[in-house]
């Protein structure tokens, strides 16, 4: 039997967590476990209105952890994230699935978190401690240290950010892989390259090898070819019913190349 506890604020919900408890966000992942009868015995949720707010402060956009993909698509300030949110599930899933839940969504899900990782987002927890880089939260996501309150996303420079999701069934299939690139430039050269892969490992991961190849470059055809050749270096993609590890490794360069080519001349 399951016990559901609902709190008016996130802070109270966070205090009520503990052994044997799971937090319920939009429920598109967690309710599957509930229906299958293998969810934890206690479900904790909140009706805190702060969780569904989107705020803009200069070039930092703050997304409450309970903001849905549909809310992102309706917000003009978040235009750079529209291409990402549009590719997550079907319409019903986008009306339900949240930013916070995407950070914990198991393989092959987590496409939004891939974009957040490339954008260098920071995650604020419910306990009010200072925001941490999303890589830290992703690395520890199997033993989370509290609830997420919001995600701070720096607006990318114009033309610097792009996202690509590869799936077999369009428009709503799960990812064979997703790739997000944030390549800001100074004097025509990439400075601070961030590249992130989804469905290419146990969680969204930075593509350090590709970042090293692109850093300081103008990203011409030669650079793109060099990046494509070593695309999957250091990654150990899983095998699942969508694609084998071998296949993911083999096609990673092709899709990275297409993504980088789509950014040319922006």
């Amino acid at each position: 039997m399951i016990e559901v506890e609902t709190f008016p604020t996130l802070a109270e919900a966070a205090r009520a967590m503990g052994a044997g408890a799971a937090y319920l966000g939009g429920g598109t992942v967690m309710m599957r476990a509930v229906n299958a009868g293998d969810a934890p015995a206690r479900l904790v949720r909140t009706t805190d209105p702060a969780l569904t707010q989107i705020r803009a402060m200069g070039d930092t956009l703050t997304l409450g952890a309970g903001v849905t993909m549909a809310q992102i698509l309706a917000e003009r300030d978040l235009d750079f994230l529209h291409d990402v949110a549009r590719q997550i599930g079907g319409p019903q899933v986008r009306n339900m699935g949240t930013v916070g839940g995407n950070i914990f969504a198991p393989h092959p899900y987590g496409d939004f978190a891939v974009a957040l990782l490339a954008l260098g987002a920071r995650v604020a927890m419910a306990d009010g401690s200072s925001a941490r880089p999303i890589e830290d939260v992703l690395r520890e996501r199997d033993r989370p240290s509290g609830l997420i309150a919001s995600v701070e996303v720096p607006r990318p420079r114009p033309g610097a950010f792009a996202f690509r999701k590869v799936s077999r069934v369009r428009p709503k299939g799960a990812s064979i892989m997703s790739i997000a690139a944030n390549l800001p430039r100074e004097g025509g050269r990439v400075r601070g390259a961030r590249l992130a892969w989804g469905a290419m490992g146990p969680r969204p991961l930075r593509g350090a090898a590709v970042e090293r190849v692109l850093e300081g470059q103008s990203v011409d055809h030669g650079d793109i070819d060099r990046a494509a050749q070593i695309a999957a270096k250091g990654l150990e993609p899983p095998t699942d019913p969508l694609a084998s590890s071998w296949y993911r490794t083999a096609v990673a360069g092709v899709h990275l190349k297409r993504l980088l080519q789509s950014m040319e001349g922006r």
Partner: protein
Amino acid sequence: MAKKPVTVTLNGTERAGFAEPGQNLLDFLRRGLGDLSPKYGCGQGTCGACTVTIDGQTHLSCLVLAEAADGRAVGTAAGLADGARLDPLQDAFMENFAAQCGYCTPGMLVSARALLDRNPRPTRAEIVEAISGNLCRCTGYEPIIAAIEAVAEERTRP
């Protein structure tokens, strides 16, 4: 573990029942409130047969906790017809042979109605997108798309 009282406005009428701990909205609507129009297909959000609206937005009722719908407006396919007068979409589904086994039809109708309510003149691509979370294994989708297009076109006529 106590049952929880849940009140929803179902297709415009206030309805109350008791939700079991962990019960999903689909089960609550069917067993608690007797609305059998939303269907159980997969229980994983993949098929869309359980699609309902909550405060006007389409949701997968199998992935919504029944008690989370407390106080909200729920719309199902059972609310589309007005007595014997069918929704134009229901007529169009019949005319275009858009239902074969019929199991996906209530979910399709809810998704299509939600689309037309916010966008009365959708393009074909917008129609395809709007029903992309609803699986149909009989029709190949073409008759369903044609039915929705027929209603959209009807609306553009004077």
